Structure formats: C-alpha cells, structure tokens
C-alpha cells in the first residue's frame, strides 16, 4: 500500500514539523489554561484584597455579627448579621418551597408525562431557565407584591406593632427565588432521572415493584448525584441572585421573618453600591462580597464532600 513502509523501519528519530506543531499546541493550550486559571485566581485574589480591609477595619466580629447597618450615619455601623441570616433563611426557604415541587415535576416529566405534553412543557421550562432574572423581578413586583400586600394587611390587621411592608418582604423574595430556581432544578434533575440506567428500572419492576415505588425507591437514589447537583445549582442561583429580589424583598436590614422587609447579602451590595461614596462604606460592600464568596465556597465544599462521600459509599 504505502511506498514508504516496504521495509521494516526504525522507530527512532522523528519528524521535526510534527514535533514542532505538537509542542506549539501544547504551549497554546497551556497558555489558555494559564489565562483561565489566572482569571480565576485573579478574581479570587481581588475578592480577598478588596473585601478584607473593610472587615479588618470594622472588625470581623462586629462586621459579621453586628446587626446594625448604618453606613451613612455620623457614627456609621457596618453589621451584616441580618443580611447573612436573610441570605441563609431566604435561600433555605426557597429550596424548601422549590425543591419538592421541582423534583416532583421532574419526575412527572421524565416518567409520567404523555409525550405530547412533554414536548411542550420541557421547552417551556428551558425557556424559563434562560430568562433574565430581572424579568422575574418585575413580574414579582408587579404581580406578587400587591397580592402579598393584601395578604399581609389581612393577617396583621389588628397588630399595631407590625411594620407594614406593602408586600415586599421575605416571603415575596422566597417565592420569587423558588420560582426562579424551579426551571433549573427541573431541567437538571429531569436530565439526571433520564440518565438513570434502564437496568435499575427494569430490575426493580422485575422484582414486582410498581412504577411509583420504582421511582421513589430506586430511581431517585440512582439519580441522586444529578439531583444534588441540580439543587446546588439552585442554591447557587438563589444565593447569588440580586436583581430579581431587590425588587421584591423590601431591602430593609431586618431579621428574616416572613413578613419583614429584608435585605440579602447580594441586594445589600447592589443597592448601596449606587450611592456609597468612596471609603469605608464602599469597602464594606466588597467585604460583603467576600463573605458571599466564602459562603458559596463553603456550600460547594460541603456539596463536593456530600457527592464524593456518596459516590465513595457507592463504590467502596
């Protein structure tokens, strides 16, 4: 066939151009890698550099556990405890509200939906996952807040101590967040459920389990890693969200009670950033950013442990 290889040839020596291209591409990819890593490291370092001075100046304890946020007062106070609590509670509640509905919907889509319905609903879910969060904010402000206001008025009619929020409160924020994370969780966990090996389903059915039993006893477990990922993505989206909830949360530094106006870590940054003059006020916003960064890191860390621990349990 080839003229070149009539004779047995040596395996030593090599073509120069080939090696050159190979080396060049290695360098190219290395540079890409380095660039990406540099960007990643850069922003991490930036977060730390920009965020730590304020924390240092205010004092970490005061900053993290102070409950008063009075950045422009003559004697300014920079305590972000309420923001932290709100972020935690708000995200948790959104997860608690959103996850079951999302999961059950994912189950519906992957296992029970008639194909015709599936063909409509699935693209709709994908569409909602791609819609800018600002839109959720507007709809929340336009639709949900007035409803919530009516609700609030009805509940606290006779409670003189209550500070009326006009519907912009933790509950509204939680509901908006829950709706926002819904498409993400449905999408990812539906995919995960579909990826469950057919064998599991067959094995379970062959043992005489009903379809529903199979779903809840085997498939959910087998899709666990994907489902956890979807929830993590949901948490990520919820905890990092600002533009949507800033329109519905009321933005007052308060304890995260359902009918309180509340301010999240993210909304604290966004709302103050517009007005904060240079100085400690502005720096403290970066401090909040750093706290948020650490937050997400910690969540990711534990989720990784959870996932890895889980898969380790599966493997050994």
């Amino acid at each position, binding site marked *: 066939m080839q003229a070149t290889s009539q004779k047995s040839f040596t395996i030593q020596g090599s073509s120069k151009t080939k090696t050159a291209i190979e080396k060049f*591409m290695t360098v190219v990819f290395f540079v890409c890698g380095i660039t990406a890593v540099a960007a990643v490291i850069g922003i991490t370092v930036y977060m730390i550099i920009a965020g730590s001075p304020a924390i240092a100046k205010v004092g970490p304890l005061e900053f993290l556990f102070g409950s008063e946020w009075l950045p422009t007062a003559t004697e300014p106070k920079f305590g972000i405890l309420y923001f932290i609590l709100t972020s935690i509670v708000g995200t948790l509640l959104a997860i608690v509200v959103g996850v079951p509905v999302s999961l059950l919907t994912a189950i519906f889509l992957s296992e029970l939906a008639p194909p015709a319905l599936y063909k409509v609903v699935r693209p709709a879910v994908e569409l909602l996952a791609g819609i800018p969060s600002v839109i959720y904010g507007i709809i929340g402000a336009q639709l949900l807040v007035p409803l919530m206001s009516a609700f609030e008025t009805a509940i606290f009619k006779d409670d003189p101590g209550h500070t009326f929020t006009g519907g912009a409160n933790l509950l509204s924020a939680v509901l908006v967040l829950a709706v926002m994370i819904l498409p993400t969780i449905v999408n990812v966990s539906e995919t995960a459920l579909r990826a469950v090996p057919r064998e599991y389903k067959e094995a379970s059915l062959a043992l005489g389990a009903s379809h529903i039993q199979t779903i809840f006893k085997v498939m959910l477990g087998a899709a666990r890693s994907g489902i956890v990922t979807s929830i993590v993505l949901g948490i990520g989206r919820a905890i990092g969200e600002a533009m949507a909830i800033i329109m519905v949360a009321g933005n007052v530094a308060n304890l995260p009670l359902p009918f309180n106006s509340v301010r999240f870590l993210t909304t604290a940054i966004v709302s103050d950033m517009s007005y904060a003059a240079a100085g400690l006020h502005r720096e403290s916003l970066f401090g909040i*950013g750093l706290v948020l960064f650490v937050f997400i890191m910690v969540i990711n860390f534990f989720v990784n442990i959870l996932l890895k621990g889980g898969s380790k349990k599966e493997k050994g």
Partner: protein
Amino acid sequence: MSEQKSAATILGRRPRVSDRVLKALIFLSAGITVLLLAGILIYILVRGFPNLSWEFLSTAPSTLKKRFGILPSIINTLYMIVITLVISTPIGVGAAIYLTEYAKQGRFIRLIEFTIETLAGIPSIIYGLFGAIFFGTLLQLGYSILSGAFTLTIMVLPLIIRTTEEALKTVPASYREGALGMGATKWYMIRTVILPSSLPGIITAVILSIGRIVGESAALLYTAGSVTNLPANWLTHPASSGATLTVQMYFAVSEGRYIEQGFGIALVLMVIVLLINGLTKVLAGRAGSKAKG
C-alpha cells in the same frame, strides 16, 4: 418468609394507597409548575406584546420625544455576544482541553476545578465590580462595551470550561486509545477525534454563555454602562458605553418610567432565549448526528 398465599395467583389487582398519594402529589406539582410557567409566559406576552411595534424595534430611545426604542440595545447586545464569545470560547475550550487532556490529574487540578465551580456561583454584581476596577480603571477602558465584554468573558469562562470539560470527559477513552494507538500525536488526536465528538457539548457551552450574556445586567451596569446610542462608527463602537437589552430593561423598569416598555423588552428577550434554545438543539443535534451518521 411470608406472602406465600398471595403468590399463589397472579390475578386480582390491588391498587396501592401510597402509590396513589404519591402520584397525586406528582401530578399536583406538575400542575403547579405548568400553571406557573404558563402564567409567567402569558403575563409577559400579554403585557409585552402591545408595546411591540416597528418603531420600538427599529429606533433609538428619545427622552425628548418620549419615545422608547431598543435598536441600540439590540446592536449592543450583539456586539457584547460576539466580542465575549470570540474571546472566551477559544480560551475556555483551550483551558478545558488543557485541564482534561494535558494537565496531570491531581490535587491542583481538583483545586482549580473547585475554584471554577465556586466562581460559577458568584453573583454577577461582583464580576461587575471587578470588571469596573480591572478593565474600567486599570486598563483605562472606562465604561465601554469592551470593558463589559471582558468582564463577561471572565464570567462565562467558568461556564465554558466546565461544560466543555464535561463534554471532553464524556468522549470515550476508547477514542483516545484508538487514535493514540494508531500513532496520532496528541494534538492530531484532539483535532480529529476529541473536538469533533465533543462539539455538541462545546456548542451547548457557547449557547449557555449567550444566554448568560443576554440575561446579564448587574455585571454590565458598572462596566458597559447604560448608554443607548446608535453606533456612530461600527469599528470604534465597542470602545463606547452601551447598554444591552437587559440593562436597558432594568433602567426602564427600575426608574419606573417605562414599565410597560420593559415588558416589551422582556418579550423580545424571551423570544431571543427561545431562539437560542432552538438553535442549541438544532446545532447540537446536527453536530451529534454528524458524528453518528
């Protein structure tokens, strides 16, 4: 063991209570979701549609004439998408290739991947602040589409890297072995086998990025700014400030002056997202089917 008796015959259906309850819950949830989805979509449609007009789509906004147009933001959005992708796709894909194909798998890689994952969850406002300082101030780009695109590049890089990495990891090891076993060099293998078969994944990454670019507001407020001018010079336009659709919508709505028009933009954005999603499927499907048959 038990149930010896019931095993005697296979006849007779016994509906299971727990099954029914669970099934009802599933249908309920699905119903809620579907209603919510439909509600949101219809709401946007109903409030947005009346605002749509040729003028709305084809003119710049004018305060003096109280006219609301979104052409500049459409153009700015396109600029933003193109510039961001042109920079981020090669770097992101290259980095993903480096991480999966070249770098020694170890603690360092895992650390980088962890950091990348963390960054993917960072609120975009933080990227905005970083971008404003790094690109705006340090690199003297000020408020400009370029500055915004660079910021978005950093923002979507983790997304592209992770998605591409996943796509690369799903390329069967057997392809690599096959190619290397033939005497292919690494780059040749990547070029001829790995990249083509992970193309659907890469396309997905790119399109997810487009989604993020289109939907982004916070990161752009402090970098690309809020100007809605038609480009005076197509070449130098990226150096000037420009609001994307989402940013324009944010301003329209947050200042309360153009809420209805905001819904108009929302509707436009929805259509764009729909197109993007459709495009993803077509492209990824085509790439996939090209690979398969």
